[in-house]
């Protein structure tokens, strides 16, 4: 007998499962039970789409926060009447603070000029009326919004720093929003993963009940649990794969045709929308790998449970 080994009792033991035959059997079953397969694919596609949308939302929120971070310029005013050396020391101290990405020196005169330009006033409009009230300053870009409070405290502690202008309230709000939205998205994803597992497991279970006699025949001729599980696992994997591909296609169609909806939503916050191409690896993971994993895990768990509970006997009807 091909690939035949013996178990410890000296009786025939399958040397290797005929995987090609079992895979064909799984594919055949998928087509034979097409109404059940189609309903599984539809429901799983819906779940995967919702998971994908949650991820897209998450990516866009993270992108929005990153944009705010990039725009997050803190202005540090130095004390009046300090030497060039002291100004240089402030600059080097600021650069040494973690999460400070860029430090730009703005001289007293340059700052005044920029303020006037921002107000739309001629440069010489106040000549002879008021003296330049602005001190020398530094424009600082800060990253990692979650640590903004710590970074700010470090900036304020630098010697010869007089005042610091920042918008911590906005930063705090965005940071809180990011945490909340991330948590909500992850909860949605977790719930949908459980729902998907449940749906596929139930579909496989119904299929198994329909094929109770087949399973009993398999048992009576000496099939191992692995042999019985394989075709069901193939069915689950293919259902997951098709659902994943469908979800991926639908998401791309949506982004291509209705991407403006996202653009206008996130554009309100001055952020650009994360496109499908940017998150392609994540979407492939979300849809195809998650679909295949969900399909196979749910099938195996379901059939193992069934075999343990009901299908272990070769003779029962």
């Amino acid at each position, binding site marked *: 007998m091909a690939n*035949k080994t013996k178990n410890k009792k000296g*009786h*025939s033991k399958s040397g290797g499962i005929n995987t090609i035959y079992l895979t064909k059997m799984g594919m055949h079953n998928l087509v034979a039970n097409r109404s059940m397969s189609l309903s599984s694919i539809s429901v799983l596609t819906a779940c995967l789409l919702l998971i994908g949308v949650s991820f897209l939302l998450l990516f866009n929120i993270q992108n929005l926060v990153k944009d705010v971070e990039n725009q997050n310029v803190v202005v540090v005013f130095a004390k009046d009447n300090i030497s060039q050396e002291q100004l240089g020391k402030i600059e080097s101290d600021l650069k040494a603070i973690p999460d400070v990405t860029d430090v730009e020196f703005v001289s007293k005169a340059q700052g005044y000029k920029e303020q006037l330009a921002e107000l739309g006033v001629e440069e010489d409009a106040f000549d002879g009326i008021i003296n330049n009230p602005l001190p020398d300053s530094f424009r600082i870009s800060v990253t990692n919004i979650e640590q903004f409070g710590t970074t700010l405290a470090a900036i304020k502690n630098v010697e010869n720093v007089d005042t610091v202008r920042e918008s911590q309230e906005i930063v705090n709000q965005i940071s809180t929003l990011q945490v909340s939205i991330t948590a909500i998205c992850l909860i949605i994803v977790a719930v949908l993963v459980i729902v998907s597992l449940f749906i596929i497991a139930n579909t496989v279970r119904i299929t198994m009940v329909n094929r109770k*006699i087949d399973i009993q025949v398999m048992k*009576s*001729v000496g099939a191992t649990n692995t042999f019985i599980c394989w075709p069901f696992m193939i069915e689950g994997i293919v259902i997951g794969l098709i659902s994943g591909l469908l979800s991926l296609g639908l998401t791309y169609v949506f982004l291509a045709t209705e991407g403006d909806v996202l653009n206008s939503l996130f554009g309100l916050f001055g952020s650009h929308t994360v496109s499908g191409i940017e998150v392609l690896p994540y979407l492939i993971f979300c849809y195809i790998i998650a679909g295949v994993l969900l399909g196979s895990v749910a099938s195996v768990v379901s059939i193992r449970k069934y075999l343990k509970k009901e299908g272990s006997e070769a*003779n029962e*009807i």
Partner: protein
Amino acid sequence: MIEFKNASMKYKTNGVVALDNVNVTINDGEFVFIVGASGAGKSSFLNVIMGQEKIDSGYVRVGPYRMHNIKKRDLPYLRRMLGIVFQDFRLIPKMTVYDNVAFALRVIGMSEKKIRRRVKYVLKLVDLTDKTDNFPNQLSTGEKQRVAIARALVNNPGVIIADEPTGNLDPVLSGEIMSLFDKINSLGATVVVVTHDLELVRQFDHRVVTIESGKIVSDIPSRTAELVSAIVPSAANSQEENDG
């Protein structure tokens, strides 16, 4: 060899005694009818042999397996030693006759080349060569049972277990099926047939074990065996030794 020693079993769900201190030995190559009324314990006897029920006390051995403590993972390998034939045939409706029979060999990972050769041989043995590509719903009841027998035989098991194999057949077909079991037995397989059809049992010269309320109430050897024992006493002694 199948051996029951003081084997007793009670159904846990209703407390009914299924087997009560059963002692019987079926030697390799024997043909044994297990007879008794419905609920007498015949199916429980088979279920213990197939590893579907475990005895509460005593000792049962099927080939190299001790059935009172057989591990779940060994059950598939035990069943590959047994060819099981059911009253309701248990054919897979979506498979052809060929595939239904070949299925038992695919389960054990045999190569397709060997499967073709083996299936061809058993289908010839049960006289179904011309029905290879038919589906079960295109067969008569007698033909369905012959496919089930071919499937049980194809793996060349040492023991054929048949649970009421003629229960759904008319007397003529029943006789044909039993003749087929006779033929299989003559090829060297041990055959254990559970039936309540005493008329059919009388037509064949085989050992008959009667079960009533879980007990073996009679164990009548075949007339040929009796005759041989009477002529050659050493044969009887050897039989007793085996039984003991």
